[in-house]
């Protein structure tokens, strides 16, 4: 198929700008009541007693469920396994144990939201508390190597012939750089709080649920509610942002459904912003040490990347910062990555935009900048000197790699050649100006997907699959790909998604949706066209009746044969058929084992840092991306911009503050958990190379949802070093790190 990049407006745009797009919490139903979570106020221990009498008699209260009066929740089949079906697998509310601050320990249902909220606060609790470890530093003594990290062993080593250890290789390196980098717990904070509206009709559950995976949610809900998954329908046509925290099932969903079942009326639960800090995952805290050995010319001879990441004691999750970066980016004859888990008494972590990669690239690309400074080599040149023309571990060829072009185009657009490598050499008044760069990468994933296409007698074509649009532009992508495949303008395509009853699609995570679903759209189009032609020749009333199918062709919505051209809707009308449909599947194949698949990019950043007061602001950003074919230009550009803005947050603002004494989260709100505002974001220049990766899939598409953030915190930190001469290795980079002796006073 010949893909042409399109620059059309977002297909769901009009619904979103008029307030007509209904998200999971936007449903009013007859006899609806409201659920409200009650969360623990201690980090570890047991609930000794729970007095719900005042809450029970509070106005409007319908029911209060607690560990002493629980809703039945079964253990999910996948409990303890690694993978996307995970989430808060501890079946909460089944016993009085408290494993982390903010654990759901009660579920209040009332006639109104206000009454439920008020009643939850009237529950009187007595705890037996136990000492808790709630942060990385305190838990280092208990660190252990997990069995598996990102599908690999905790330690992965590549050594050249005759080298017995990475340390030996490092010892013989002429130039050595080694530093430790820290990043805090971060929270996704999508603007839409998780919301669930559940209703039962007999033994059938219909649930509007904020999720990145309707079919995963369907399976998980069925498992923990003890019902057949055929009796669960999950609807989620719109997701108000997710970034990973709606990829797993979290306990408020089954609790809401279970309460609706017991009470025999619909229940809606919308998490408060505060509750989201312990109920729906976070990015773990990471401590990583990167050690680089190099020749004096800047060729890496050894690369060692050692990672510690926190993980909830009750739910394993590894933030694979080294495995997903240092095993992929640079040509080094000797590489070692290690990962240690630091167990903490804290809520479960989960995937957050570019899991592993976002913190890992901060460490690796900061270290590369430190090496460039030490060697006096231009940072772009240093990266080119270590350019990996094959995948570094298994030495597989890349499916498609044009990272060198990203560096070149990015440097030119940004004006990199005019940068002074000397720190503190550029200023504007009392603002020090600096420029930095970093590489971006993200693994290209692809999963099995199935798509249905229907030619309809109204002249439109529907394309559907149980996938999602998280703001990623999937409605638009589906319509564009179907439009291209069928030769029909996008406005005649109806894209349908977000319903577990549709054909199989993977979780909208891991930047894989477009790469997985688009080839299936193309296959479905072929199938639907074949069906259309078969129908056209078989029906007696058809203009093509009795013809040999091989003599009939289809192009641009029109069926053609022996001089006749009939639009498909006319063919359907002649046959009195409402529609003809075909479906197509697409799966990754043998190529998976023959190539390395990655998306690449180059990030260039300018910052200003006030020499008096140390606040750093990003003033300019250029990003050049090698992500294969770009299907939808507008939404793709927005995705990359969004990733960069996320990266600005990670670099300069975001940190979840945990009271070391109690596990209490100090900034559980959007006033104090700082995400970027409009004023924090400059103009962002995004360029796509738009080179199809047809080895990866038919359309040459790779993902773009996550790569935008990769490298951004490092580019910012490197620019801050260029501005100030101060190397900051702890995120976020806030004024206290930059107050040091800039004015000769401290």
């Amino acid at each position, binding site marked *: 198929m010949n893909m042409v990049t399109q620059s059309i407006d977002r297909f769901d745009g009009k619904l979103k700008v008029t307030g007509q797009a209904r998200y999971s919490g936007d449903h009013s139903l007859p006899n609806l009541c409201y659920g409200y979570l009650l969360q623990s106020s201690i980090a570890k221990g047991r609930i000794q007693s729970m007095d719900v009498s005042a809450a029970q008699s509070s106005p409007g209260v319908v029911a209060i469920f607690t560990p002493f009066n629980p809703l039945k929740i079964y253990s999910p089949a996948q409990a303890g396994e690694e993978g996307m079906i995970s989430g808060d697998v501890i079946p909460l509310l089944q016993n009085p144990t408290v494993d982390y601050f903010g654990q759901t320990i009660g579920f209040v249902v009332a006639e109104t939201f206000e009454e439920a909220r008020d009643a939850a606060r009237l529950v009187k609790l007595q705890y037996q508390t136990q000492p808790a470890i709630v942060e990385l530093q305190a838990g280092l003594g208990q660190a252990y190597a997990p069995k598996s990290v990102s599908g690999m062993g905790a330690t992965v080593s590549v050594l050249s012939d005759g080298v017995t250890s990475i340390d030996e290789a490092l010892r013989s390196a002429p130039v050595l750089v080694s530093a430790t980098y820290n990043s805090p717990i971060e929270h996704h904070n999508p603007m839409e709080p998780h919301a669930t509206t559940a209703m039962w009709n007999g033994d059938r559950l219909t649930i509007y649920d904020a999720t990145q995976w309707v079919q995963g949610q369907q399976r998980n809900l069925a498992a923990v509610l003890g019902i057949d998954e055929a009796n669960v329908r999950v609807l989620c046509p719109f997701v108000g942002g997710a970034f990973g925290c709606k990829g797993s099932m979290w306990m408020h969903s089954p609790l809401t459904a279970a309460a609706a079942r017991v009470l025999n009326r619909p229940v809606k639960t919308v998490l408060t912003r505060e509750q989201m800090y312990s109920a729906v995952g976070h990015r773990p805290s990471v401590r990583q040490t990167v050690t680089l050995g190099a020749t004096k010319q800047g060729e890496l001879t050894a690369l060692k990347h050692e990672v510690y990441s926190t993980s909830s004691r009750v739910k394993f999750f590894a933030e694979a910062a080294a495995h997903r970066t240092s095993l992929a980016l640079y040509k080094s004859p000797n590489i070692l990555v290690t990962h240690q888990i630091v167990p903490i008494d804290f809520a479960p972590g989960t995937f957050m935009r570019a899991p592993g990669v976002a913190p890992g690239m901060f460490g690796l690309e900061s270290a590369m900048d430190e090496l460039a400074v030490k060697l006096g080599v231009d940072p772009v040149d240093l990266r080119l000197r270590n350019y990996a023309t094959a995948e570094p571990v298994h030495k597989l060829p890349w499916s498609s790699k044009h990272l060198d072009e990203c560096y070149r185009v990015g440097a030119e657009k940004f004006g990199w050649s005019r940068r002074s490598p000397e720190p503190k050499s550029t200023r504007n008044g009392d603002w020090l100006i600096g420029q930095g760069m970093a590489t971006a990468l993200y693994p290209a994933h692809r999963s099995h997907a199935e798509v249905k296409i229907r030619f309809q007698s109204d002249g439109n074509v529907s394309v559907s699959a149980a996938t999602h649009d998280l703001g990623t532009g999937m409605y638009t992508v589906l319509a564009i790909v179907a439009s291209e495949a069928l030769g029909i*303008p996008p406005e005649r395509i109806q894209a349908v998604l977000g319903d577990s009853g549709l054909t199989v699609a993977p979780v909208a995570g891991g930047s894989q949706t477009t790469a997985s679903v688009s080839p299936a759209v193309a296959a479905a189009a072929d199938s639907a066209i074949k069906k259309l032609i078969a129908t056209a020749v078989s029906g007696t009333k058809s203009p093509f009746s009795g013809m040999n199918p091989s003599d009939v062709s289809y192009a641009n919505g029109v069926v053609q044969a022996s001089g006749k051209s009939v639009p498909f809707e006319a063919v359907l009308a002649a046959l009195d058929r409402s529609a003809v449909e075909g479906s197509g599947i697409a799966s990754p194949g043998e190529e998976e084992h023959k190539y390395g698949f990655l998306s690449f990019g180059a990030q260039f950043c300018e910052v200003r840092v006030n020499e008096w007061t140390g606040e750093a602001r990003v003033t300019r950003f250029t990003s050049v991306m090698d992500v294969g074919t770009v299907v939808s230009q507008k939404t793709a550009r927005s995705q990359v911009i969004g990733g960069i803005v996320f990266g600005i947050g990670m670099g300069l603002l975001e940190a979840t503050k945990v009271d070391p004494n109690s596990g209490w989260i100090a900034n559980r709100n959007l006033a104090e958990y700082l995400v970027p505002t409009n004023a924090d974001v400059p103009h962002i220049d995004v360029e796509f190379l738009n080179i199809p990766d047809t080895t990866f899939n038919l359309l040459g598409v790779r993902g773009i949802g996550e790569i935008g953030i990769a490298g951004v915190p490092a580019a910012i930190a490197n620019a801050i070093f260029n501005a100030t001469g101060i190397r900051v290795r702890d995120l976020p980079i806030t004024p206290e790190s930059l107050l040091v002796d800039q004015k000769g006073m401290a």
Partner: protein
Amino acid sequence: MQRKPDPLSAPCSAASEETGSSRRRFISQLAALSAGLSVVTPISRGVADTTQPTRGPDQTPEDGGFVDITLRVNGIVRKLRVDPRVTLLDALRERLDLQGTKKGCDQGACGACTVLLDGTRVVSCLTLAVMAQGKEITTIEGLAKGDELHPVQAAFVSCDGFQCGYCTPGQIMSAVGCIHEGHTKSDTQIREFMSGNICRCGAYPNIVDAIKLAVTQGKEAI
């Protein structure tokens, strides 16, 4: 297929000729989907005056008591009986089925719930419904004239000033207020005066473009 060029599309988009009747069919299809297909039909409260007591009169709480209020929303008078605790946001969303106004934080820290009160932008999560009486309340549902988008709405579509769309009603209401206030003299001023609306998808540069576009091309209609 007839394509109508969008008068607002030019500066943001090279090829945004995306309108027309089929597009609207697609939109209505989506609307049907989001309304739950055949599974369940959300209560449509119509547009007439509605009295919707949230519970029977015998359940008056010990403290306070329910109050009868009258709100004028998008030009329509709506009568309600509410607990004084009910915010304007929850009154709109949970009592009047105007779910376009979104709850992002419920603490005045994100701007997703922004509406206009007598033409001035405010956050509805910190506005008690009882105190919004006597004011003209404009929500995202009240901006378009029938099928014709308000210039700010059209500019947001044209410039892709959103991704997930959840903060968008608040961004748009805030942008309308920002333009009214005259705080659009420079990119820097727009950014600062739009900073009360958090967009986690990071659509900020496009939001700034959309506001500039709306100011230059849609002035008479705003």
